[in-house]
């Protein structure tokens, strides 16, 4: 603890704080631009840090990582274009909020949830790095497989009106995730001879196409209502539309706490990543809600759930890195190189050999959280001006941003074709009321589930009886079965209730998430 105080003394000087702030700002902007994420930002910045003092250099890099996780919410909310794939669930409720004139409210909640998730997760890293990391190693492929299987049951809760349609969409998500080299014997699956498909479809162009491009196409299709709408969308008139009210705080705080917990756990576990974290948190929040059917139409809790988990993943994914020297995420793997360059070899020994530098890193991480709050708060006012522009002028700009974003990661036009293909699918998914949330969950979890399942078969020596040696896995399998049973029973009851109510209100069946807004437009036109 006294080390931490020395750490703050080292960090709290203008030069170091300046570089941390530069990192956060850079990350925030990179995060807001679709396609440019923290991995690219940090990788590009590493050579630049050769010329900085170690503390400033590491502060800069950590600032980029943290800032971009928060910045990605901005474009998700304002443009329905997640800056990073892990902010895709933020768009589900954030964008409808923006369309209702509550963009500032959504942006603020996104920022507060980001900062809180990040801050608490940083504290978890500082306090529990060593004890937690040894548990992370107990989670092998067999346990991960069971956990992922369990997380697929969230599909049930996120399916919206029709469980069948939700499952169909999820199955399509898994299906598209199977494209590429099969992970065990490296046979190409459905690549049609395209080398670009050997590594599978990338999440970024797919998510951009489904969420943003499809939405823009739909909007453009409603030209007559557009101008009428834009007039309505300008800043919400009342103050309550611009700030987070006390009542909303009360509703969102438990959501943020849960999101932070989910994000931190997902970050510590190897190989899951921020996208899994934010989707799980969104799913869990929706399931726990008393009004699950309203998700996707502008629930502030949805934004809080997704962003708190998304940002909590970043610091906690450093837990295995600091405690054991194992990279728990892509960003941690990149940071290893940077840490070593600046004289800090991640691993249990670094606490003994370099206590002061470790304390400096911790102090700069805490400072980065607070700086993020300030920069995000003022940055949002600039970004939020986007909504004053008439929608018919925004659409071309967003389409350009989408294309650049899709192109960035692979520097290849092929990704833009992928984006357009999924724009088409996203368009029909909206029109036909299929949930693209469950599609994305299937797509994100499918490949990990397949890989860990194949790994488990090998590790268990092809014998189901060997599962007995994996109690954590057994627990999650039991939870999965219980949830499936519970969902099916609830669904059967709901169906029975619907049959009764349909007699009174024909055609009142509820619809999938995020579709209400667009359907509303048709009525307007």
């Amino acid at each position, binding site marked *: 603890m006294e080390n931490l105080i020395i750490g703050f003394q080292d960090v709290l000087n203008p030069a170091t704080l300046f570089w941390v702030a530069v990192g956060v700002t850079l990350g925030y902007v990179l995060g807001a631009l679709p396609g440019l994420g923290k991995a690219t930002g940090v990788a590009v910045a590493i050579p630049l840090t050769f010329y900085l003092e170690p503390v400033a250099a590491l502060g800069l890099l950590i600032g980029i990582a943290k800032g971009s996780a928060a910045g990605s919410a901005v474009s998700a909310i304002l443009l329905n274009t997640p800056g990073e794939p892990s902010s895709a669930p933020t768009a589900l409720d954030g964008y409808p909020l923006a369309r209702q004139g509550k963009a500032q409210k959504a942006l603020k909640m996104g920022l507060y949830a980001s900062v809180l998730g990040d801050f608490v997760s940083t504290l978890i890293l500082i306090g529990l790095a060593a004890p937690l990391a040894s548990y992370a190693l107990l989670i092998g492929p067999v346990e991960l497989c069971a956990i992922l299987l369990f997380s697929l049951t969230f599909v049930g809760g996120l399916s919206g009106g029709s469980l069948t349609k939700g499952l169909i969409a999820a199955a399509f998500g898994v299906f598209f995730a199977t494209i590429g080299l099969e992970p065990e014997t*490296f046979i190409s699956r459905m690549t049609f001879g395209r080398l670009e498909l*050997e590594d599978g479809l990338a999440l970024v162009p797919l998510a951009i196409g489904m969420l943003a491009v499809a939405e823009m196409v739909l909007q453009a299709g409603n030209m007559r209502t557009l101008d009428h709408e834009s007039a309505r969308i300008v800043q919400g008139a009342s103050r309550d539309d611009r700030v987070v009210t006390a009542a909303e705080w009360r509703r969102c705080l438990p959501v943020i706490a849960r999101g932070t917990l989910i994000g931190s756990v997902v970050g510590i576990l*190897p190989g899951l990543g921020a996208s899994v974290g934010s989707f799980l948190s969104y799913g869990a929040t929706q399931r726990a809600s008393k009004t699950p059917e309203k998700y996707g139409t502008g629930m502030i809790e949805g934004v809080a759930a997704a962003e708190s988990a998304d940002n909590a993943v970043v610091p906690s994914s450093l837990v295995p890195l600091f405690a054991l020297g194992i990279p728990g995420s892509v960003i941690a793997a*990149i940071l*290893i190189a940077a840490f070593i360059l600046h004289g800090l070899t991640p691993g249990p020994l670094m606490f003994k050999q370099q206590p002061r530098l470790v304390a400096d890193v911790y102090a700069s991480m805490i400072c980065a959280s607070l700086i993020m709050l300030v920069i995000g708060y003022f940055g949002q006012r600039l970004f939020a001006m986007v909504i004053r522009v008439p929608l018919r002028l925004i659409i071309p700009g967003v389409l350009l941003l989408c294309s650049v974003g899709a192109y*960035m990661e692979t*520097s*290849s036009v092929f990704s833009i074709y992928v984006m357009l293909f999924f724009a088409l699918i996203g368009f029909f998914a909206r029109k036909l009321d299929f949930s693209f949330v469950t599609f994305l969950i299937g797509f994100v979890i499918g490949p990990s589930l397949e890989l860990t399942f194949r790994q488990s078969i090998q590790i268990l020596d092809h014998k189901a009886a060997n599962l007995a040696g994996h109690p954590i896995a057994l627990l999650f399998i039991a939870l999965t079965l219980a949830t499936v049973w519970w969902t099916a029973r609830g669904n059967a009851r709901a169906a029975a209730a619907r049959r009764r109510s349909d007699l009174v209100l024909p055609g009142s069946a509820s619809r999938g998430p995020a579709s209400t807004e667009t359907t509303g437009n048709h009525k307007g036109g």
Partner: protein
Amino acid sequence: MTHPTRRGLLGAAAALALGLAGSATGALAQEAYPDKPITMLVGYGAGGQTDLIARAAANVMSKELGQPINVVNKPGAGGAVAAKELQAAAPDGYTVMFHSNSVINSAPFIMERVEFTHEDFDYAGMLTFFQVGLVTQKDAPYDNLQEFIAWAKENPGFSYGSLSPEARMYMEAIAKKEGIDANIVPLKSGGDMINGILGRQFVLAFSGGIHNKYPDEMKMISALTTIRHPSDPDVLTIEEDGFPLGMDTRTTLILPKGTPRPILEKLSAAMQAAETDEDFNKVVAAAGIPIMYMDLDEAAEEMESSYAKNKSVIESVGVVAK
């Protein structure tokens, strides 16, 4: 003679696409080379080991050549997507690729749609060596391949972590010859491998060299290369243990076929500066990667011999291009 704008470049930090104009040919141009920024393709995503080395090398080379070098990540099919693009680029030295030479000297034998030969490209040199080996926990009851095989015969159904088709091939070849029963666990990344070894999910794994960062937790029992590793000079190569399966991989500066020799020489000399550059040495030392510089002639020779060697290794084991 000037051609119109030919390539879009990604200004990395600014994230803006820039157009670049101008490209000259002829002897004059070779003397003036480079008089505009160079694009360096990397066939892996940003942030991987090869990408970090490429960026560090690009830094050094750009200082030497006096022109910026823009690193462009073009991941896909282990680098084959980027190599295809390089093949189509003009052989003027302004589009280069920094990558593991495995994309040319072993991918064609493993992936059906990759059909490069070593003669499809020119090479300006090689810079670092991948210390590929079989690794296990530090406290494992075997220290070399022979002891492991003896242990494996007593313990059928053990698990082996495999990262790539080559990794699979090694275990299949050993298992076939020695009659041992191995479960091959597929892995996606070096990080998976480290987790699996430290978490005791498997008893042996294929490592592309990353194990050198974990000297206290891991040991190598066999070098899968034709020469012993600078980091583990006492560990025998797999060839010394009686399996003629050693394959060498090195980061290589690859150029389109037909690049004029004076340009190759300039690039080669610029890359050699990395050998003694302080920042570059810090980057590779941090990753436990040895520098083994080869100039353009040595690189061409190495490509030719390793291409033939790897072809015979992979074909002898009976892996067919899928």
